[in-house]
C-alpha cells in the first residue's frame, strides 16, 4: 500500500523488480539510475557480490511528479533471485505497490521463470494480495540474445491468467524498453491511486442519525 503523508503532501510508491536469478533486475535499476536526472534521484544502494549476484536488494529512490497536489515518490527495489533467499524476497515485498516481473527470455531459463513467478504469487498471497490485483507488468528481457523463446510462448507461460497484464520486450543491458515498462507500471499505479482518491471523494459523507433519548419507564 502506498504511503501517503498528508502533512508533507507526499505519496510514496514502492515498485519491486522480481524475477529469477541473473535475469537482469539489477541491470534494470542500474540503467534507470544512469538515465534519471541526479536531482530527481537518490543513490542506488546495491549489495552485490563480485559476480553481480544481489545479496539483499537494490534500492533506488526517485522523486517524481505532482498529482492532485501530492508529490509522488517512487522507490524501486529488486529482490535476490536465488531460490534460497525467499525470506528476503518476502521482506522486500512487504507493502509493495507495483511489481515488474523480469523474465529471462532464454530457452533454458523458462522453468526458472515459471518457478519465480509462482514464488511471486505465493509471496504476495502471504500478504493477502492477489497477483491480479496488484499493478504489474511483465518484462521479457534479453531479447537481443539468439537463444530466446518467442514472445507468444512467453505470453502463454507467464501471461495466460484471467487478467492479462502488459508485457514488454526488453534489453536491459542497453535500456531498450526499460523505461517503457517502468512507465507502464507507474501509470497503472497512478491510475489506481487516482481512482481510489476519486472514490473516496465521491463517497457519501456520513450522516448523523438523530438520537432520541428513551424515556425511562416508571
Amino acid at each position, binding site marked *: 500500500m502506498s504511503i501517503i503523508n498528508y502533512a508533507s503532501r507526499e505519496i510514496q510508491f514502492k515498485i519491486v523488480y522480481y524475477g529469477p536469478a541473473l535475469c537482469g533486475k539489477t541491470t534494470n535499476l542500474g540503467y534507470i539510475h544512469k538515465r534519471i536526472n541526479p536531482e530527481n534521484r537518490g543513490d542506488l544502494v546495491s549489495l552485490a557480490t563480485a559476480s553481480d549476484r544481489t545479496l539483499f536488494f537494490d534500492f533506488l529512490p526517485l522523486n517524481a*511528479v505532482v498529482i492532485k497536489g501530492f508529490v509522488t515518490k517512487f522507490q524501486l527495489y529488486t529482490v535476490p533471485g536465488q531460490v534460497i533467499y525467499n525470506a528476503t524476497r518476502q521482506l522486500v515485498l512487504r507493502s509493495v505497490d507495483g511489481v515488474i516481473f523480469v523474465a529471462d527470455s532464454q530457452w533454458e531459463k523458462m522453468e*526458472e521463470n515459471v518457478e519465480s513467478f509462482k514464488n511471486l504469487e505465493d509471496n504476495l498471497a502471504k500478504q493477502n494480495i492477489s497477483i491480479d490485483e496488484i499493478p504489474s507488468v511483465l518484462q521479457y528481457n534479453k531479447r537481443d540474445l539468439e537463444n530466446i523463446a518467442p514472445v507468444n510462448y512467453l505470453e502463454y*507461460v507467464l501471461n495466460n491468467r484471467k487478467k492479462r497484464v502488459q508485457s514488454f520486450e526488453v*534489453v536491459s543491458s542497453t535500456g531498450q524498453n526499460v523505461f517503457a515498462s*517502468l512507465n*507502464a507500471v507507474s501509470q497503472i499505479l497512478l491510475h489506481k491511486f487516482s481512482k481510489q482518491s476519486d472514490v473516496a471523494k465521491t463517497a457519501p459523507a456520513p450522516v448523523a442519525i438523530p438520537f432520541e433519548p428513551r424515556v425511562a419507564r416508571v
Partner: protein
Amino acid sequence: MTIPFLSYFKRGNGSAAVKEKAAPAKPVLPPLEKPSSERFSKTVMPNATRTLPPQDPFEMAARSTALGGQMPAAATAIAPSPARTISFSPSSQAISAQQDLPPAVALALEPQVERVISLELGDVLTEMPSGYVKPLESIDTSRRVLLKASEVERGMATGNPTVSLATVYQQVPEIFIRRITESDTSQLNLPFQKVLNGFASMHVRADQERANAVPQVETPFLKVTLEDNRKFGTTTEPLETTEMPPVRIEPPTAEAFAAAEPEAAADAILKMTPAPSTNGVTPKNPTRIPFKLSLNGTDAPAPESVPASSGPSVPNPLPSPLASVANLEGAVVPPSETENWDTKAPPTCGAAPTPVRIPFKMAAMASVIEEEAKPKPEPWLTKETVAAATETTAEPKVSAAVLPETARVAEVKIALPLLPILKSLPPMQLTGDPSCVPADVRFELPFALIEPQLASGRVSITAKVFEVSVPVSFRGLFQAGPGALDVSLPLQEVLKNLPAAALRMRADQEEQDAGQNFATPFSAKAEEDAKRFNVPATPVAKPVVPEPVAEVAEPPKAEVPDEGRDGGAASPEEPSSDRPLRTPLQVALNTDEKLDAKGVVALIHKLSGVKACAIHFGDGLSLAGSLPADLETDGICAMAPSLMQRLENHLVDTKLGLLRGMTLSCTKGAVTFYMHENLCLAALHADLDLPSETRERLSRIVHELSRKYSHPV
C-alpha cells in the same frame, strides 16, 4: 612602492605604544556576574568513593624491610593497576555486583595476581660478585626479599635460576655500594634448592571453587586412556561414575507407547550426580548404552526417497527395508522374519545385507505410453478434485461432450527430431555415439503427454516412454535402466512441432486497467529510448492463435471470434491441429503460408482499405511491391524513409509522441508509409482513409518484416 594595509599597521602600532605609555593603574573591577545559563557547572555524584591502586609489592617489601619487618615465606601480591578508578557505589556493593556479573566480564575485572617467592637475603648474596655490596658483616642476611616467580622460573628448567641485579637493588638498595640502573642486565645466580622450596610452598587461592564433576560416559578416548595408564604405569584420578539409569527396551508397539511414562527429570539428575571419589578404587566400566542409532536417527532404514523437485529417485546405497537386517548382536535376520518387522524391535544395519530381488512386472510397451498419456489427477486435494471424485463415483459414465475432445487430443501426435534429444542425454543413458543418427530421423509422441507440461517451462518424458518411442533401429543407443532419469525434450524443438492451437491464450482474459495517460517521470525517458532504439514503447500485443474447430458435434454455444482481436478465427476448412507453430509475421498476417516478400505484399493487398503496397529498404531499394506503375510512386517511395527520419527528428521537440506513420493525401489517392528500423512499407489507400484496424496491422507487419529483413538470422 605601496604596501597594502601599511597605514593600518602603523596606526595600530602607534596607538598601542601610546596606550602602554599612558596606561594608568586601573582599579580592579569586580567580575561580571554571568547568567546561570552561561556558567559552567560541576555536579558531584553522591556516594562517590575513590579507589587507589594497590601498592607495589616490591615497594612494600622494601618499606617493610627498611623498617625491619618480616615477610612471609610465600606470598601473593596484587599487581599494580594502570589507572585509578572512581566507583559510584560502596566497595562492598561493587564486590557483590562483580559476583553477579557475567563470567567473562567478572574475569576481566578481577585483579591480576603476581606470583612471588621470598628468599633470605643471605641466600641471594651467596653468588653476588664482589665490588657490588657492602661487607656481609654489616648486612642483616636474615631479611627476606621478594622475587618475581615469572623471572626466576625461567632458569629452573636448566637448574640455574637467576634474578636480575636490578630487582635486588630495587628492594635493598642500602646494601649496595653503587647504584644499579634498571637497564643493567647483570644476572645473579640463586640456590636451586632454596628456590624450589619456595615454589613448592606456593598454594592455590583460597576462594577457588571446584568445577562440577560430570558422570563419565563411554567415549572413544576413555578406553584408550585406561589402557595407557596400564601401559605406562601412571595413575590418574579415579573415575567418578555412577550407573546410568536403566533403559527399558520394548518393542515399539502402541501399547508400549501408551504405557510409557515420562521419566522423572529430578530423579534422573540426582542419579547422575557423581559419587564421592575414593582413591585407589578401580573405576567401574561405564554403562554401555544398549542401542545404536541408525544413519537417519530413527533406527529405521533410510527410505529411498529424494526431494520431489529433483526428479526421479536415485538408487540408494543403503539397504532397503526388504534386505536382510541384523539385530543388536549382529546376527543376520532372514528376510522372512522382516515381514512383520514393524511389530518387533527396530533392526539396525549391522551386518552386510544380502540383496533381495524386488519382484516387478514389465508392462507391455504399448500400454506404457497409454498410461503416461492418461490425464493424471492433481496430486493434492482441491475443491474441484473432490467434486470430480464424487461425480465419478456417483456417475461412472463419461460425459459425451468431453470424450471426443479428449480422444482427439490423445490421438494427436507430434514428431520430434531424435538427434538433438540424444545429444542432450547424459552419457550414462547412452550406449553408443548419437552422432551416427541422421538429422532427419524423428520419433512421435502423443501430444497429450506434452500439453500439460507446456506451461511449466520444461517438457520431459519418462525414460520408458522415450525408449518405446525411439525407432527400433536406434533404440539400442538408449539405455533406460531402473531409476533412469527423465528425458528432457528441448523446448525449441517441441514448440517448432506443436499444433497451431497448442499455445492458445485463454479467451476470457481481461486486460489490465491502465487508465488515462498519466505523465510519469519516466514517460519522457521511455519515449526517448523508443526513438533511440527505434522500437515502439508499446506493450506486446496479445498473441492470436486461431481457435480450433471442433470436429465433433459441439453445443451451439461455440465461441464467436472476437472481432477486435487480431487475426480473427481460422477458416473452418483449415485443419487446426496439424498446423505448425506460426511465426509472428504469419500471426500478423493470419496465414500459415511460408512467407516471402512477394507473399507478404499479396496478403497486405487483401487487407481492407488497402489497394496496393510496396516494401522498400531505408536506402530506397525496393524489396517487393504492387503499386500501379501509372502512379509512378517509385521516387516518393525511395524518398519516404529519409523524410520519415527527418520528421522523427523534429517530432522529438513536440509533444505529439512517436511517429507511427506518414500519410500523403493527394487528389488522386492517398499513400501511408510505415517504417521500422531499415524497412519502409507504403500502402496505397483504396478509399480516402485506412481503417484503424488495418493501420494497426500494417504497423505490426512492418515491425515483423524489419526483424526478418533488417536482421536476418
